[in-house]
């Protein structure tokens, strides 16, 4: 039995939207277990979101329409990106060629820009602090992502995510080539930054001066806060998908439109994401949070790896 392609494409978006909070739940659970605690249920993020979706909305006095529009725009962005990247299939779906990997990056950046603008409009010092910090460090992670994209483009001859995933699967030599290893390491460090994990900040920590991601949403309430929370969980899963299905392990993707292949692809995606989440939980438990001003060092290291990747490729040795 084969599924129509538009259905598979819709399924890509649905899977990301539905599984994203669960991945967060798994990471929180594994982290708690490693610390010797019982930890919350894996489904806890869904209950939290459900509770928030049912609450009433309050907006700060004098906040503009951007404040209420931003969560919706951000969510729309996060729902658009899974159309462009290989979430379930190894072949390009009808809308998959709409944008390349840079387009995906721009859409993700636009979402976080809207959230920052909303935070800046609230007049709350905490939200503004979070927004300005997020943008300051993002200015350093952007070049890293660019260099990773350059590496991808030099290796696969195009910057379409599907083509890159296909190149990686062609031979084991594509996986162990130095440029690939270096750019994967750089991308992983960027993902740690973007998903607000330990060396950069404590995930969901609300009582620290170092918080970035959480502070931005300080003034949002009810369904709007739920949209932002859900959105950041989706962003995390999207970045996991980019890391796993394009760069590191594009295996287990459906090769055709058969029902069985798609179901297996869903299971493979969830399995790989949970594994990566486990790795991130271990990192969360074994490192200390960096001082705010040390984050530039962390990002500079990622930048160095990405630049080395391009240079080794350029010399023909990568």
């Amino acid at each position, binding site marked *: 039995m084969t599924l129509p392609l538009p259905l598979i494409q819709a399924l890509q978006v649905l899977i990301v939207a539905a599984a994203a909070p669960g991945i967060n739940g798994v990471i929180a659970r594994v982290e708690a277990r490693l610390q010797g605690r019982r930890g919350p249920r894996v489904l806890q993020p869904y209950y939290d979101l459900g509770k928030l979706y049912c609450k009433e909305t309050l907006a700060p006095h004098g906040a503009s329409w951007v404040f209420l529009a931003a969560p919706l725009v951000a969510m729309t962005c996060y729902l658009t990106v899974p159309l462009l990247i290989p979430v379930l299939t190894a072949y390009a779906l009808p809308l998959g060629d709409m944008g390349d990997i840079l387009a995906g990056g721009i859409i993700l950046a636009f979402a976080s820009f809207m959230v920052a603008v909303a935070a800046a409009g609230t007049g709350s010092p905490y939200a503004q602090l979070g927004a300005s910090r997020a943008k300051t460090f993002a200015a350093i992670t952007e070049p890293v992502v660019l260099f990773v994209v350059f590496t991808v483009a*030099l*290796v*696969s*001859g195009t910057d379409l995510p599907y083509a890159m995933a296909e*190149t990686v699967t*062609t*031979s*084991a*030599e*594509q996986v*162990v*080539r*130095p440029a690939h*290893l*270096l750019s994967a390491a750089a991308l992983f460090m960027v993902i740690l930054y973007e998903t607000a994990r330990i060396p950069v900040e404590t995930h969901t920590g609300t009582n620290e001066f170092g918080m970035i991601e959480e502070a931005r949403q300080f003034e949002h309430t009810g369904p709007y806060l739920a949209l932002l929370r859900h959105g950041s969980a989706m962003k995390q899963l999207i970045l996991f998908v980019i890391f796993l299905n394009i760069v590191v392990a594009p295996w287990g993707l459906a090769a055709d439109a058969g029902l069985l292949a798609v179901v297996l692809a869903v299971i493979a995606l969830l399995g790989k994401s949970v594994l990566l989440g486990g790795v991130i939980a271990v990192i969360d438990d074994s490192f200390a949070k960096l001082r705010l001003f040390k984050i*530039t*060092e962390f*990002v*500079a*290291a990622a*930048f*160095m*790896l990405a*630049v*080395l990747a391009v*240079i*080794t*490729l350029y*010399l*023909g*040795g*990568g």
Partner: protein
Amino acid sequence: MVAAPPGSYAGATTALAVLMLVIEFGMLQATLLRAQVRLYVAQSVVISVLAVVVAVGREVPELFGLAVFSVALKVVAVPLVMLRLLRRTDPEIAGSRAMGVASMVLLAVVVGAFGFFASARFGLVSPVLPTATLAVAVAIVLVSFVLMIVRRDVVSQAIGFFALENGVSLASLVVAAGLPLLLEVAFLFDLLVAVVVFAVLIRVHHEQSESLSTAGLTELQG
């Protein structure tokens, strides 16, 4: 067009060489002097592994001997001496950098890239290792110079010098892997001499100025 990957031997050896360069950058960033020594050990382990890989992959059995010597000297002896010297000093959390870490790394990236592209112009073709590894070796040497220049304490400067020797060993693996073992060993004994000299320097400096920092040396006048 898909860029052809290097073969698995070339890919693995280049990856090891690049790993050495990455560790070199780690030394630049490391704040604690002990961490620097540990990174030096890691770098030495990597170059020994690389020698073994070349010995197996290109059938140069002398390199097994070189690997054994370099493990004994660089992984065991040198770090022991350095850590012993550090034990006698106060645990100084080095504030010995002349510039911020991010700008230091950027400077090193620029200098390393210069080394890369400069050596690419040589057009050397090695029978045993891909040409890119020579470029990496030159970059390691240049980044070691940056390390020795921007860190103002004697231990970092010693470690920078030893790391520089690692870069030179890598270059010698590329251009002259078939070198008689005796010459390679003589090379390593040069390192031993350097260790003795630096050990004396560190002790004398520490006894005279009660500190590992070289910043005070500018005040010495006639």
